[in-house]
C-alpha cells in the first residue's frame, strides 16, 4: 500500500540512533507481565523458555537415571519393582530423546539463528510460539502420566507387539505414542521456521560461503527433521489406531507386519541421532574459532561433512535391526553406509584438530568441553563402527555394550558441546559471564564421572549383562562393576549440579558481560548482550565469513525499513541480495489458544476416536482467529 504524501516518514533512513532505537523498541516490544508472557512471539524469549524447559527435563531424566543406578548397585535389590523400573527406563529414554535432546538443539537455534543471519525475528514467529506450547503440553502429558503410575513401560522405541493391543494393557503405550505426536509437531514447526529463516532472511551479502557453520548445521538438521519425523508420527498413529480402533497395521495374523514398526521407527530413529549430533557439531565449529583465535580450518569440508552426514543418516536404520532376520547381503549394505558415515565425521574431527593445532588455543571452559567432546565422541564413534559390523552386533545386541556406546555418542557428542555452548552464549542470553572456576570444576567432574560411569558398561555388555533388567542374581559376575558404575554416577551428578548452580548464580551475580566477550566473528555478537527486542538497530550487510573480524569497526548496515511496523529484509536464496521488505507478525494469544485446543484433541483421542472429529472444531476456530486480520500496520504487507 502506498503511503500518503502527507504521512510522516517512518523509515529508518537518516534518523538519529536514539530516535531509531526508541521507535524500534516501541514497535517490537513484548508487553511486561503475564499477558506479555502468554502472547510474545519474540524468538529470544521463546528460545530462552525452550532452553530452560529442556534443561528441566534433563534434570528430571537425570533423577530417573540416578534411581536406576541406585537399584542396580546391588544384586536382587528391592528398591524399585519390575513394573516401576520398566516405566523408569522408558521415561528416561523417551524424556531424554524427545523432551531434551532434540528440543534443546532446536531451542538454541530458535534463539541464535535469527541473530547469526542478521534478521529481526524468526520466520513464522506465531508458529514458533505455538510449537513451544505444544512441546510443553507433550512433556506435561508424559510426566503427569508417570506421576499417576500410567507412565509408558515399553521402552523408548516401543516395539510391537509389546506395545500393541495384545500385550500393552491400559493407556501406557498410548501416552507414549501421543507424546510423540506432541513433540514431533513442535519439532516440525521449528524446522520449517528455521529453513525459511535461513533461506530467505539472511542479511544482505551473506552468500552460501559466508553462512556460519552452526547455521549450516541447523539447515541440514531441519531437513532431517522434516524428512525423518513424519515416519515416526505415521508409526505412532498406526499404533494408536491398532490399539483404539482395532486396525491391524502391526498384526501379522490379519495381514499386518511387526517389522513395519521397526522399519518406520528406525527410519526416524537413526537420523534422530544426527538431528542431535549435527547441531552440536555446528556449535563446536562456531565456538572453536574465538578460542583457537583463527578461522576454522576447512570451512568447505565442514559444510560438506554436515550435508553428507545428513543424507547418509537415512541409509543406516537397518543397523538397529541386524538380529531381525533380514538377508545378510542387505544388512551388509547398511554396514557399508554406517562405516562410510565415519568419513565425514572424521573430516570434521581433523578440521577441528587442525584449527587448534594451527591456532593459539585459550583453554576457557567452552574449549574444555570441546576437548572433552572430541575425545569422548571418538570413543563413541569407534564403538559405533564396531556395532555396525553384523557379527559383532549380533553378540552385543541389547546388552550394556550398546548402552555404553550410545551414551558416549549422545552425551559425548551432543551434551558436552551443549554445555560448552551454554558457557559460550550465556553472556549473549543474560548479559552476564558464567564463573570460570565453577565451570572448570563442573567440566572435570562431568568428564571423569561420565567416563567412569559409562566405560565399564562396555565390559558389562561384553560379559553379557542385558539392558533393561531391573535386577540380577548375586552369582553373576556383574556386581563389582555395577557398584563402581553407580558410585561413579554420583561424581557425574555432582558435576551437573555444579553446572546448574553456576548457571543460576551467574544469571544473578555474574560479572557483567561486554557485547562481544570472546572477540567472536559471527553476527550475534554485533548487537548488545542481551540483544534488544528488535535484535539490530539496522540490518548488517555481510562482506565475509567472519564479519566482526574483517569489518571490526565499520560493519556496514542496510537501511530503508519502516520503524512503525515490524519489518525485515527478505533476500535471495543463494546470493542473499535484497529482494523485499516483509512484515513480521505482532504478539498474539492465538498460538496459545490453538495449542490448548490441539492438546485437548490429542489427549482426548487417546480415549475416543471421535475426539479427532469434535476436537478439530475448536482448533479450526483458533486458527481462524490466528489468521484473521487485526488492523495492525503489518496487515498492509
Amino acid at each position: 500500500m502506498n503511503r500518503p504524501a502527507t504521512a510522516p516518514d517512518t523509515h529508518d533512513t537518516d534518523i538519529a540512533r536514539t530516535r531509531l532505537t526508541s521507535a524500534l523498541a516501541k514497535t517490537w516490544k513484548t508487553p511486561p507481565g503475564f499477558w506479555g508472557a502468554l502472547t510474545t512471539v519474540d524468538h529470544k524469549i521463546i528460545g530462552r523458555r525452550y532452553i530452560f524447559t529442556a534443561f528441566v527435563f534433563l534434570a528430571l531424566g537425570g533423577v530417573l537415571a540416578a534411581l536406576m543406578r541406585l537399584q542396580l548397585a546391588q544384586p536382587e535389590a528391592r528398591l524399585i519393582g519390575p513394573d516401576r523400573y520398566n516405566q523408569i527406563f522408558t521415561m528416561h529414554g523417551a524424556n531424554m530423546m524427545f523432551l531434551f535432546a532434540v528440543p534443546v538443539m532446536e531451542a538454541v537455534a530458535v534463539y541464535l539463528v535469527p541473530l547469526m543471519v542478521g534478521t529481526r525475528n524468526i520466520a513464522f514467529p506465531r508458529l514458533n510460539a505455538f510449537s513451544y506450547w505444544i512441546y510443553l503440553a507433550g512433556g506435561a502429558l508424559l510426566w503427569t502420566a508417570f506421576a499417576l503410575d500410567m507412565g509408558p513401560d515399553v521402552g523408548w522405541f516401543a516395539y510391537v507387539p509389546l506395545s500393541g493391543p495384545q500385550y500393552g494393557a491400559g493407556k501406557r503405550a498410548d501416552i507414549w505414542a501421543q507424546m510423540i505426536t506432541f513433540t514431533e509437531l513442535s519439532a516440525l514447526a521449528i524446522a520449517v521456521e528455521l529453513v525459511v529463516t535461513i533461506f530467505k532472511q539472511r542479511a544482505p551479502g551473506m552468500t552460501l560461503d559466508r553462512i556460519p557453520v552452526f547455521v549450516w548445521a541447523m539447515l541440514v538438521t531441519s531437513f532431517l527433521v522434516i524428512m525423518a519425523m513424519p515416519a515416526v508420527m505415521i508409526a505412532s498413529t498406526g499404533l494408536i489406531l491398532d490399539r483404539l480402533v482395532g486396525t491391524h497395521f502391526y498384526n501379522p495374523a490379519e495381514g499386518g507386519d511387526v517389522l513395519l514398526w521397526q522399519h518406520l521407527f528406525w527410519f526416524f530413529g537413526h537420523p534422530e541421532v544426527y538431528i542431535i549430533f549435527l547441531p552440536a557439531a555446528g556449535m563446536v565449529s562456531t565456538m572453536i574459532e574465538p578460542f583457537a583465535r583463527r578461522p576454522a580450518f576447512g570451512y568447505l569440508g565442514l559444510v560438506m561433512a554436515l550435508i553428507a552426514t545428513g543424507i547418509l543418516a537415512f541409509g543406516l536404520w537397518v543397523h538397529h535391526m541386524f538380529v531381525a532376520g533380514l538377508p545378510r547381503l542387505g544388512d551388509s549394505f547398511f554396514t557399508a553406509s554406517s562405516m562410510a558415515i565415519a568419513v565425514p565425521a572424521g573430516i570434521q574431527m581433523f578440521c577441528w584438530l587442525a584449527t587448534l593445532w594451527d591456532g593459539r588455543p585459550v583453554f576457557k571452559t567452552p574449549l574444555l568441553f570441546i576437548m572433552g567432546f572430541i575425545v569422548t565422541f571418538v570413543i563413541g564413534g569407534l564403538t559405533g563402527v564396531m556395532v555396525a559390523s553384523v557379527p559383532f552386533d549380533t553378540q552385543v545386541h541389547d546388552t550394556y555394550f550398546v548402552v555404553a556406546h550410545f551414551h558416549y555418542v549422545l552425551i559425548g557428542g551432543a551434551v558436552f558441546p551443549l554445555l560448552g555452548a551454554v558457557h559460550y552464549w550465556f553472556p549473549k542470553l543474560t548479559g552476564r559471564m558464567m564463573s570460570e572456576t565453577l565451570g572448570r570444576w563442573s567440566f572435570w567432574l562431568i568428564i571423569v564421572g561420565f567416563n567412569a560411569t559409562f566405560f565399564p558398561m562396555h565390559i558389562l555388555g561384553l560379559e553379557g549383562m542385558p539392558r533393561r533388567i531391573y535386577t540380577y542374581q548375586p552369582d553373576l559376575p556383574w556386581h563389582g562393576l555395577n557398584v563402581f558404575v553407580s558410585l561413579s554416577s554420583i561424581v557425574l551428578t555432582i558435576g551437573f549440579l555444579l553446572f546448574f548452580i553456576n548457571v543460576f548464580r551467574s544469571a544473578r551475580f555474574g560479572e557483567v558481560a561486554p557485547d562481544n566477550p570472546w572477540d567472536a566473528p559471527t553476527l550475534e555478537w554485533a548487537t548488545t548482550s542481551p540483544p534488544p527486542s528488535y535484535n539490530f538497530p539496522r540490518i548488517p550487510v555481510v562482506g565475509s565469513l567472519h564479519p566482526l573480524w574483517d569489518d571490526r569497526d565499520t560493519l556496514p548496515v542496510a537501511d530503508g525499513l519502516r520503524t512503525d511496523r515490524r519489518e525485515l529484509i527478505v533476500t535471495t536464496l543463494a546470493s542473499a541480495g535484497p529482494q523485499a521488505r516483509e512484515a513480521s507478525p505482532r504478539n498474539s494469544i492465538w498460538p496459545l489458544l490453538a495449542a490448548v485446543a490441539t492438546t485437548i484433541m490429542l489427549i482426548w483421542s487417546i480415549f475416543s476416536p471421535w475426539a479427532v472429529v469434535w476436537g478439530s472444531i475448536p482448533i479450526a476456530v483458533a486458527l481462524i482467529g490466528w489468521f484473521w486480520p487485526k488492523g495492525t500496520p503489518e496487515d498492509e504487507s
Partner: protein
Amino acid sequence: MNASRLFTYLSIWAGLWFAPLVWAVNMQLGQILPYADCRSQLHSSVIISFVGAALTSASGIASWSSPRRVGGEAAEQSNAHFGGIVSALSASVFTFALLMQGVAAVVLTGCEK
C-alpha cells in the same frame, strides 16, 4: 533460465543430488536383489554397486569442473565455486559408500540369512 544454464547448475550440484540419488537407489536394490542373486548367482548387486560408484564419481567430476562455466556477478560465481567443491567432496563420500557396498556384494552370495 535457459537449458544450458540449467544444465550448468545441475552439474555444479550433481554431487549433492545425483550421487545421493544413486546411493539411495542402490540401498533399496540391496534389499530386493539378494533374493534374485541367491537364485541365479548373477551377482547383480556387485555390478550395480560398482556402476553406481562410477556414476557418482562422474557426478563429482562434473561438480568440480562446472563452476568455471558460470559468469555473472561475483556473488553468483562465489556460490557456484562453493557449490562445486562441496558437491564434489560429497560425491566422493557416496562413491566410497558404493564401493564398500560393492565389495560386500563380492564377498556375500545373497543366500546368507
